[in-house]
């Protein structure tokens, strides 16, 4: 009896300390979501401006022929950029991204292409290493707080590979799998084609002004397109970071809830065991006293 009591007490202690950890993780994640959302908002003016400038350029110079806009059907190798987190403790966040990436890779193979993984975040890296697969490129160490320099590094590598042909070890198209932050409760995994850029025909009332170009339209486009690609990647990294924090908050919240429930169950069991021990002791004493009284009466 006493042994069972001790065991339960120990279990309660250990669950309580786990609950403390998950509770702290939850609060950290909550505060980081706000920061991540602010970072998304702060990056918006730049992204909007650069999109507007590209729109202006492309709509006035339809004939512009830039390598980053060109389809490369002869190149069968395609890059798949997979954005995951560096740390776990975030529920299904990484599993979802990797599952989507797997189905994209399968779809690409069926089209006769050769998908090449470009990985962001430790989790994708360990997943690929464990399965002994080839990794084309990897970046880690910034998944929860990406800086523009990180996006720049990724963008430069991807653009450089895109401009090379298959024979030189380049790629024909670039896909990205990342997680879009929809709201605190919803984050959805997105699969996008980053390059070549798709030009959409839209009927807008507001036609961008007819710009003059300094020095020439070609030079401006040369400069703008890589900047645009980097800004897109930065946006995706920021969205993924916000999603990572939201997933972590949710996972840690349910872990804390479960721990508290477990503590309740164990406490009840412990009280029951204690009561049983006391009852047994009393009945033993009463039984003993009766036996004594009976024997003394004779």
């Amino acid at each position, binding site marked *: 009896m006493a042994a069972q009591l001790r065991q339960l007490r120990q279990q309660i202690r250990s669950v309580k300390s786990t609950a403390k950890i998950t509770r702290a993780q939850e609060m950290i994640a909550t505060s980081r979501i706000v920061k991540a959302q602010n*970072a998304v908002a*702060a*990056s918006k*003016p*730049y*992204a909007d*401006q*650069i999109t*507007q*400038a590209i729109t*202006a*350029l492309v709509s006035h110079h339809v004939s512009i022929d830039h390598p980053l806009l060109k389809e490369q059907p002869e190149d069968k190798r395609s890059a798949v950029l997979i954005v995951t987190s560096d740390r776990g403790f975030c529920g299904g966040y990484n599993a979802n991204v990797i599952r989507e990436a797997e189905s994209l890779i399968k779809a690409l193979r069926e089209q006769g292409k050769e998908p090449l993984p470009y990985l962001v975040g430790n989790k994708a890296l360990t997943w690929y290493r464990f399965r002994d697969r080839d990794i084309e490129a990897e970046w880690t160490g910034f998944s929860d707080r990406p*800086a*523009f320099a990180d*996006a*720049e590094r990724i963008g430069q590598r991807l653009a450089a590979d895109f401009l090379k042909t298959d024979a030189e070890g380049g790629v024909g198209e670039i896909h990205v799998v990342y997680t879009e932050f929809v709201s605190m409760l919803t984050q959805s995994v997105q699969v996008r084609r980053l390059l070549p850029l798709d030009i959409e025909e839209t009927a807008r009332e507001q036609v*961008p*002004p*007819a*710009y*003059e*170009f*300094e*020095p020439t339209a070609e*030079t*401006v486009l040369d*400069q*703008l397109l890589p*900047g645009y690609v*980097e*800004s897109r990647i*930065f946006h995706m990294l920021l969205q993924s970071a916000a999603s990572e924090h939201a997933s972590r908050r949710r996972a840690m919240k349910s872990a804390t809830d479960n721990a508290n429930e477990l503590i309740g169950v164990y406490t009840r069991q412990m009280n029951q065991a204690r009561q049983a021990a006391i009852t047994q002791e009393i009945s033993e004493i009463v039984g003993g006293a009766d036996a004594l009284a009976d024997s003394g009466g004779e």
Partner: protein
Amino acid sequence: MATLKVGLVSPEREIWSGEAKMVVAQTVEGQLGIMPGHAPVLGVLLDGSVVKVEPADGGEWISAMVGSGFFSIAGDEVSVLAEHAELGTDVDVAAARHDLEAARAGGEEDSTAERRARARLRAAGQEA
């Protein structure tokens, strides 16, 4: 008098925005002064140059170092977008000097790092 609506942004945040009388930027081909009523232009900034803004409220000129970016003028709106941008008042002069020395020691003539360090010093109002 008409004023320009100016926004100076980097990918991570908005560096400065407000009304201005005049903006001076440097492209690869030379300096360009922008006043209200300018024709729409999309231009490439010289990597490692200084953009100057004269605020409409008559305050002091604002200088900022910019690296790798472009600017657009449309109507009376001027947007300066730079992958690296820093206001002159935020520049750490000692660090910039150190960078300049390091870039010079690198031996390359007119390297980007050297130009950027110089631009940071100039934006801070220091001799470079």
